[in-house]
């Protein structure tokens, strides 16, 4: 029973993580991880990153008919 509850909790957490990734909630965390992997300094604050990301995203076709 306990195992079932734990795996349910784990599954739920994974789904939430995926939703956060899908909607862009986790973008800054991913940027942090990418910088850490490349051992480069963090150059953008969360606010700067958010605005820059939007500027890039909406400068090319990203919504279809």
């Amino acid at each position: 029973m306990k195992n079932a509850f734990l795996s349910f909790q784990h599954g739920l957490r994974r789904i939430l993580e995926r939703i956060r990734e899908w909607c862009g909630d986790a973008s800054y965390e991913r940027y942090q991880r990418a910088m850490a992997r490349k051992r480069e300094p963090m150059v953008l604050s969360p606010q700067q990153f958010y605005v820059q990301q939007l500027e890039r995203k909406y400068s090319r076709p990203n919504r279809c008919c």
Partner: protein
Amino acid sequence: MKKFISAFVWIVIAVIGAGALAAIALRRNERISATWFVVAAACFYLVAYRFYSAFLAAKLVALDDSRATPSERNDDGRDFVPTNKWVLFGHHFAAIAGPGPLVGPTLAAQFGYLPGTLWLIAGAAFAGCVQDFVILFCSIRRNGKSLGEMARDEVGKRGGFIAQLAVLAILIILLGVVALVVVNALKTSPWATFTLAMTIPIALLMGVYLRYLRPGRVLEASLIGLALVLFVVVAGQWVADSASWASVFTLSGVALAFWIIAYGFAASALPVWLLLAPRDYLSAFIKAGAIFSLAAGILIVRPEIQMPALTKFIDGSGPVFAGKVFPFCFITIACGAISGFHSLISSGTTPKMIQREGHARVIGYGAMLLESFVGVMAMVAACAMQPGVYFAINSPAGVVGTAPDAVAATISGWGYHLDPQTMTNMARAVGEQTLFNRAGGAPSLAVGMAQIFSSTIGGERLMSIWYHFAIMFEALFILTVLDAGTRVGRFMVQEMGGRVWKPFGQTSWMPSVVISSAFVVGAWGYFLYQGVIDPLGGINSLWPLFGIANQLLAAVALVVATTILLKMGRLKWIWVTLVPTVWLITITMTASWQKIFSGNARIGFLSGASAWAAQIAAGKIPAARLTEIQRTIFNLRLDAVVTAVLAVMILVLVLEAILRWTAILTKRSEAVLHETPYVATQWVAGAEGD
């Protein structure tokens, strides 16, 4: 044993799918359940995905999971981001699924349910999915290059230029048409207008929240926005019931058109974080929720299809738009079966985020199958209502008149019985003053959705709430396409202008921002205004124009794909992209020819203009309408020129491609592929990236 079970399961799925398709295709004069549509589509998609996409992945393009993708090679946490397969599937689907697969099938339902449904299912499996998948593959192998760049590298400079022009043309026509759909859905409806207007302050609030209060917390801001939007959907009823407030939000088509043009300009020129991005977040959540709810509603309610398999309007005399089933059914359905615009997404963000080449199959091919399924559901929602009601909502005043009795008599005369009281009762049930003459597809789809939703939850009592929820959902994400498209158009104009005068290319230089935004908004705004004042409702002339432009872009994408496959030495399998290319060119050229030169004044732009001119010459037009009709004549001639330019672009591209293919096949020119060199992946299977 495992192989035997698998083969048995697939044979069962194929047999069930074939049976359901036969039931849809062969039954006449008896009503069938929507379940047949869902089963036929689902089984066909499963078989197509399992076998055809596997063949494409293995034989046609030979996906290679040992090869590092652009996201691995260039991982910068910004543009190139390795992304989980299902998260990227969601991103890609949200990007490709717009109003097209909802509006197109709803309009094409005037031919009956059969032609549109067959094209949605087969067109997606053999054309749309193939285009999306192959272009995604080509872009992955070219470090995420765009369609225009690939066309320039692989086909030639002219091909690249045509691709760029086609993108701008389709953007402008698309934005004009979808804005017209919104205008026709909102005009004289204070409830719907109030609800949509309120999404602007809600988006601004979300923008400030995401920028200053909780940077990047999209999920919580979207949930707050969603709650507020649901509240304003309900509050719209109070506005409609208040005499003073209702008059503020009761707007004519022309007034709404100017408001939408002003909105488009603001969304393009304002900082992206303030209005455009938060509205997009809101729209994405509502879109996902509404589409899944519609699927669940259809499965629970299993409505009966009331529209016949084929209507008399396959002969080209349809009231919604004129033109025979061939080629106009295929032009009208557009995005639910194949959309050139998808190739921009497949060569945009998606290839930069994909983790493995193998994921291209589910993302490129699978997401398009899902979009086609959305199209089938829209067809079901449109065909589940009485045909008389469907034609009353979608027929323009210029064809059926405006007085309820006259409309009912005309439509009943076509053989689709309509009682004026039915329309009055339905308008009352959905909280509208009238549902007559609402060409554009959105109101009839909203009625269909409201009927399905209210049969699941709330019954007749909640019909008006569901109707306005559906209108808000359609209008919200159409406006998202509008503002995102205007901004992209602005960047394209700035880039082109920058080639002539460098400072104009600086995307943050305010004079350039204002001029380029005004240019793009002015261009699509003109098409919108033309549609609003068109005596035939605008959709009759503009939707086919949009369909032609969209299929033109698909032809560009498929020509690029065919050229690349030829260079890869896949001559044996070249029919995979060549057959849909030939089909698209055939329907696009036929439709273009008919739209320009048909002698039928409702189909041909030139004969339409001549017919009006003859009426003026004969003194049949009252002086008060003279200016309006002269403007209509000018607009029809302009549409003929635009269609001709699109057709010439296709011919030039095809000629260029044929010359290139001949040179490759006769070995007169070397087949140089512009792929990035092979780099082996460093990721262990199943543990890659994030």
